């Protein structure tokens, strides 16, 4: 059968069970859009290509499938870079299809030509420029395979216009021949046995769950593991939801804005079991002071994550789920150290937990944390939450406890403002019946606010909660603490009227100015059948606490100036 390049693409998308493509047409992809028109593959057309990738990212994480974007050459391609870099840092499986000028024009500085495979080389798992239509099917199949296997990640395929219009004989690709790409899923036995030995000996073990637990679908195995060894569990931002926040062994997130219990326990644990985490600097704080008394068991499918930032006593290369299954089996046989010996450790942890930093509510002004707490209450913790980046993201991590995996979708590694709204759109496409809420700041929501039009166009009732303090709040907080309150560039007083803006887009706009308006506005917004934008005017200079200054040891946690008492004693509220 002789098929055109565009038809081959459609065939492969079908074989890969792609239901939806997020993108924006342009000169070099007209043929592809034309081919997909009327097919069963749904096209969601966004308003900016960065959003096409973030939406595919949100879709991929909510659906557990490979997300696909389709954009044109030149500026269409360059606009995807932030989205690709974010997905790369967070290991999200994406295939990004870019149009390219015809092969005979490549290198001539043609109109809307850019070397996108060159530009994205350092931020993709792999990328391709297809030079011959004969290679197209194989490359596309490889792209999907590479994106979803091993440590997942984005793969970009650059598609020159003439290649997509050329014809060749098409046979479905049956077998891929990637000579040297063989991710190791099955960990070796020896380090597993050694891990069991260390676990048996440990009196103060701590489990650190990272995004790898979610990616490998290992939440149930992690639960069984932690309960079996009776170890407290913390997680990275990307790992939130890997372990139920309502479990007594849960001690909260670790790191710069981590809980007191999590940060303190890393300093005194004697064994740290890291599962699918890569020890980002926001997690470790001062790396020389991190978990100094601990031996470290490090499970990760990507060997480069192991011993990159912290030493590992026992490196275990493999899939988190397979590794935990094997460990659980070995531990079931093992009758070593009775977990009772860990009672003292758990009591110590409990004392730290009781001393968790809280915030004080006020009568006349909305506290941003309060909005998140009410959001949690009203959604019974069951919404899919996306976030923007900054204070809104950290307050969400702190005040919206997650019991299930894949309910938090956030740009963790890259910290890409403008992520939340398009990611929410993607998540809503994946889960039409779920409530999807983007927690935003007034700064970052403006980075991709044009996507409200996309949400309205496709009837995707995403909700946006804006914690509006008229500042680029996280940077302002750093300036308050470390730059003598010199607020250079951070006040964003000039902002649109978000209620009117929402209405202009055909969405619902709501506003809360006082604490007693918080719940009514949330109730109304969350129940709306339309996309809804809720503007909460919150305490302008509220900070995210506790906070470990960049480069400081995790035990050096700051509280809000003048509220040092919040660090000690049980939780209290004014």
């Amino acid at each position, binding site marked *: 059968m002789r098929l055109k390049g565009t038809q081959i693409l459609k065939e492969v998308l079908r074989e890969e069970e792609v239901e939806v493509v997020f993108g924006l047409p342009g000169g070099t992809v007209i043929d592809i859009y034309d081919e997909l028109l009327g097919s069963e593959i749904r096209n969601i057309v966004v308003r900016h290509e960065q959003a096409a990738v973030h939406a595919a990212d949100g879709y991929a994480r909510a659906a557990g499938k490979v997300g696909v974007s389709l954009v044109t050459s030149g500026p269409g391609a360059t606009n995807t870079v932030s989205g690709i870099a974010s997905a790369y840092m967070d290991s999200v499986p994406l295939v990004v299809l870019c149009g390219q000028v015809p092969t005979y024009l490549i290198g001539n500085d043609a109109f809307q030509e850019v070397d996108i495979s060159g530009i994205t*080389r350092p931020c993709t798992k792999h990328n391709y420029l297809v030079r011959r239509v004969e290679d197209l099917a194989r490359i596309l199949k490889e792209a999907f395979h590479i994106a979803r296997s091993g440590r997942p990640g984005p793969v970009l395929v650059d598609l020159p216009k003439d290649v997509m219009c050329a014809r060749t004989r098409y046979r479905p690709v049956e077998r891929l021949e990637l000579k040297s*790409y063989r991710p190791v899923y099955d960990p070796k036995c020896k380090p597993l046995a050694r891990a069991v030995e260390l676990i048996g000996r440990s009196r103060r073990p701590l489990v650190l769950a990272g995004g790898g637990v979610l990616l490998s679908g290992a939440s149930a195995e992690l639960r069984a593991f932690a309960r079996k060894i009776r170890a407290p569990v913390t997680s990275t931002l990307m790992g939130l939801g890997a372990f139920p926040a309502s479990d007594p062994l849960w001690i909260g997130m670790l790191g710069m804005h981590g809980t007191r219990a999590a940060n303190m326990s890393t300093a005194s644990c004697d064994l740290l079991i890291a599962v699918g985490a890569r020890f980002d600097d926001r997690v470790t704080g001062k790396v020389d002071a991190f978990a100094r008394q601990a031996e470290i068991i490090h499970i990760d499918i990507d*060997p480069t994550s192991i011993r990159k930032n912290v030493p590992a006593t026992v490196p275990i290369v493999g899939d988190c789920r397979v590794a935990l299954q094997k460990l659980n089996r070995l531990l079931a046989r093992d009758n070593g150290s009775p977990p009772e010996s860990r009672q003292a450790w758990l009591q110590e942890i409990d004392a730290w937990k009781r001393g968790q930093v809280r915030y004080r509510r006020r009568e006349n002004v909305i506290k941003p944390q309060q909005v998140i707490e009410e959001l949690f209450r009203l959604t019974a913790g069951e919404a899919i939450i996306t976030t923007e980046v900054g204070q809104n993201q950290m307050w969400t991590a702190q005040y919206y406890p997650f019991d299930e995996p894949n309910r938090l979708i956030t740009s963790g590694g890259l910290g890409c403002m403008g992520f939340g709204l398009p990611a929410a759109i993607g998540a809503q496409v994946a889960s039409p019946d779920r409530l999807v809420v983007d927690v935003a700041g007034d700064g970052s929501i403006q980075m991709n606010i044009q996507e409200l039009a996309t949400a309205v166009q496709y009837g995707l009732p995403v909700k946006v909660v804006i914690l509006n303090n008229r500042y680029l709040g996280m940077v302002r907080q750093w300036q308050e603490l470390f730059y003598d309150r010199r607020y250079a560039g951070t006040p964003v007083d000039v902002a649109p009227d978000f209620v009117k803006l929402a209405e202009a887009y055909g969405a619902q706009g709501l506003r809360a100015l006082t604490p007693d308006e918080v719940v009514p506005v949330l109730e109304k917004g969350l129940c709306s059948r339309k996309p809804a934008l809720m503007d909460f005017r919150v305490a302008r200079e509220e900070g995210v606490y506790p906070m470990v200054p960049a480069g400081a040891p995790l035990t050096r946690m700051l509280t809000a100036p003048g509220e040092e008492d919040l660090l000690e004693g049980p939780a209290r509220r004014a």
Partner: protein
Amino acid sequence: MKKEEAKKQVLSILVENQPGALARIAGLFSGRGYNIESLAVAPTMDAAVSRMTIMTRGDHAVLEQIKKQLNKLINVLKVVEVRKRRSVQRELAMVKVTASAEDRTELMRIVEIFRGRVVDVSHESYTVEITGKTAKIEAFLELVKPMKVGDVARTGPIALNREPL
């Protein structure tokens, strides 16, 4: 991690002969702040595969990370650490020496001692070809320095591990 002294290491890398493969490897080194002291690349007997010889520098942890990162690249087939002993390493240099009449005999003597060859002659200069370990090339350059040395082209070392007897 503990800081220890950086040491030189030669890596021999088999890589699929694909467009962009060299850029991927060079980009990996520059993007992650690793050092490339020299790089030599050419196809192997299998035209689809090239061998790249990279001399780099780093402490133990950095070298381990470099090897892992290289292995992570889809186009990289194999990364071999070239042993300091039990390997053969060679570098080729071509050196243009402006030799006056009185220097020429001395130059010829040095070339002979180093088992080099004169591959081009003009009124003003000799172009000398010399092969050997990097240290030998450097010793040669040191010796001819007093004469006027013009253009120098060096391949950087290429290397293979020795097989057991």
